[in-house]
């Protein structure tokens, strides 16, 4: 594996499978009465979060603790960024204390690449702007593989705010690399340019997109990243693109409903679907810990000098 995990593009196909296989073993640890192994004992992991995050930060922290790493959480409020020190200075100060891994969440696309160039510590991208969120895509793939036994050949439909979604970008790279037929569906105003080039089908018709889908991945409508009006109202969005039981009925009978959270009930997804029998949303959360343990282990668990 490369030094850092900034993008799914940093992983080969084999490495993706290695992460998923390792996560299987890690999940078992979480089912023991004593949920801790000494794998990362003596290693220091810094969770450097420039954006508020409950799910991802908690998931990383639990993963680190189960591997016995020493963890440190730094949450930098967005308001203090402007008057405070630069990202580079913060990172260099942390670096001076020799952490092994820095887990970075930041509102700017490419923030992890900037740190990667100046830090010896391994950088794990926990979401950078609208760019990528690689561990989310890995846990999504893990969850799909667990249910379907494979990813190759599945029709996976990603629906919602595509433009602003780092989850989308990581998932497109990962799922196409593993042979899924990926569809992107959302309003034309939120459709990123040129993804056909990655072998993805794009549709503004949710009924077309959902037909015979094996997996429906619903993305959150990200009010906070929307500078400008992309659609008239949340009500109208739900009318045209909301994932409702009626629409899901067009998908395969054993369809999986996924969502990276946090969900907006009644905006991108109907509660009946989110809470329904096909929903694996909470399994995704559980699997997130195992997948992040796998990533941290594979990056930082090697022998010294490895």
């Amino acid at each position, binding site marked *: 594996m490369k030094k850092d995990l900034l993008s799914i593009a940093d992983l080969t196909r084999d490495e993706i499978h290695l992460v998923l296989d390792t996560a299987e073993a890690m999940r078992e640890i979480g089912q023991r009465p004593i949920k801790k192994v000494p794998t990362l004992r003596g290693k220091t992991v810094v969770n450097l979060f420039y954006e508020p995050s409950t799910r991802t930060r908690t998931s990383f922290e639990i993963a680190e603790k189960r591997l016995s790493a020493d963890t440190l959480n730094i949450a930098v409020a967005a308001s203090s960024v402007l008057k405070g020190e630069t990202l580079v200075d913060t990172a260099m100060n942390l670096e001076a204390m020799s952490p092994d891994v820095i887990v970075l969440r930041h509102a*700017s*696309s*490419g923030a992890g*690449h*900037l740190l990667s160039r100046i830090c010896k510590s391994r950088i794990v991208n926990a979401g950078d702007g*609208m*760019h990528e969120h690689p561990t989310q895509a890995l846990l999504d793939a893990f969850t799909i593989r667990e249910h379907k036994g494979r990813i190759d050949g599945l029709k996976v439909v990603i629906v919602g705010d595509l433009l602003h979604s780092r989850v989308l*970008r990581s998932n497109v790279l990962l799922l196409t690399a593993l042979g899924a037929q990926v569809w992107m569906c959302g309003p034309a105003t939120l459709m990123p*340019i040129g*993804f056909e080039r990655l072998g993805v089908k794009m549709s503004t018709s949710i009924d077309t997109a959902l037909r015979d889908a094996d997996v429906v991945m619903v993305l959150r409508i990200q009010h906070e990243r929307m500078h400008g009006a992309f659609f008239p109202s949340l009500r109208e969005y739900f009318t045209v693109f909301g994932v409702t039981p009626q629409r899901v009925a067009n998908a395969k009978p054993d369809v999986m409903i996924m969502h990276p959270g946090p969900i907006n009930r009644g905006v991108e997804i109907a509660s009946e679907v989110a809470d329904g029998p096909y929903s694996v949303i909470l399994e995704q959360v559980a699997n997130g810990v195992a997948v992040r343990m796998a990533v941290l282990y594979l990056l930082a668990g090697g022998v010294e000098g490895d």
Partner: protein
Amino acid sequence: MALLLKGGRVVDPANGRDGVFDVLIDEGRIARVGAGLPVNGAKVVDIPGGCVVTPGLIDMHVHLREPGQEHKETVATGTAAAVAGGFTAVACMPNTSPVNDNAGVTEYILKKAAEANLARVYPIGAVSRGQMGEQLAEIAELRQAGCVAITDDGKPVATALLMRRALEYAGMFGMPVIEHCEDPTLKGDGVAHEGFEASALGLRGIPGAAEAITALRDLAVAELTGGHVHIAHMSARQTLDAVRWGKSRGARITCEVAPHHFVLTDGMLRAPVAFDTNVKMNPPLREAADRDAMLAGIADGSVDVIATDHAPHHYDEKKVEFDRAPFGITGLETAVSLCFDRLVHAGVITLPRMIELLSLNPARILGVAGGSLAEGAPADVSILAPDLQVTVAAAQMRSKSKNTPFDGWTLRGGVAATMVGGRMVYVNDAFANTLG
């Protein structure tokens, strides 16, 4: 004492010259150009083999940052960079702090230029007070103080009405209005060209249409008023089509392209260095079709000028997240090498055409002396070395800022020496023995 530049290839498109001639310089002016001129007591400078003597190059679009942003560049460091890049004159943009919207700032810049005593500096004044897009700046006074054109560069002239007034008013003094074409609503908070690369990298896009819309608006206003609009740093193929259409209709519209827009594409966002802030500039690096259109426009004569949009920024300002970094790269010290390597040696244009783009045409558009080795003209001369192998080294540059995406590039073609008013103001180390 008179100076005789002996035995070089002289390329002087203004006078239809391209051949081996001697150039006699006396009292800071071109005294004679001809074959085998008698020495008559002049100091002889033998032009090294392979070198070319041309009228001094003029960069009509630079940011010298003074007053107000001296940590990025000063008139002294910017003009040192200019002469090292083969430029004998530069025209500097008014988006300083304070804005060059009054005679006092213009005079200050000219005083600094006189102190530096390197390249000639032609200040460009603001269209509107404070570049706020509301009230016209005191354009007559700017003219009187030495401004050669007006622009609100950094942003577009705010409205069609303001553009109309600016063209009508500046037209009285024969000054063009230089336009930074950009529809602010389409640009939004974009940071890179709107295309596949930015889309995949999660960077907010600036579509080519944002540039073309303003160019088309200005074209209509140029026709309405008969005024001269010069389109700065053209980057999008749609804008080039607009310029061609305007020219075909007889509108007074001219345009410039920066070297990075005919050399680089938005693929640089991803590699060799992902999210490198030294490939962030406005207008942004566009896709291959746009880059190829710029080359075609340069080849077919639609493009009038090559100008660098030299935009120095301190490394602290660039060593941040991509979306937080300021737009702009330096250009003065790489332009000639890029033009030789990517235009002349690549067979896109001839050397005389390159000199039109870098010297004759900017002189004509700005209405300044230069662009010609006519007898009696100021002896502003560039001595170029078309086959010199140049390795770009940002750390060695004269500019105070090092924000260039070309660091480490090896290019064929460079500058041997630069002469302003008959005085050698720069000699490349490689020619220290012959021209020094």
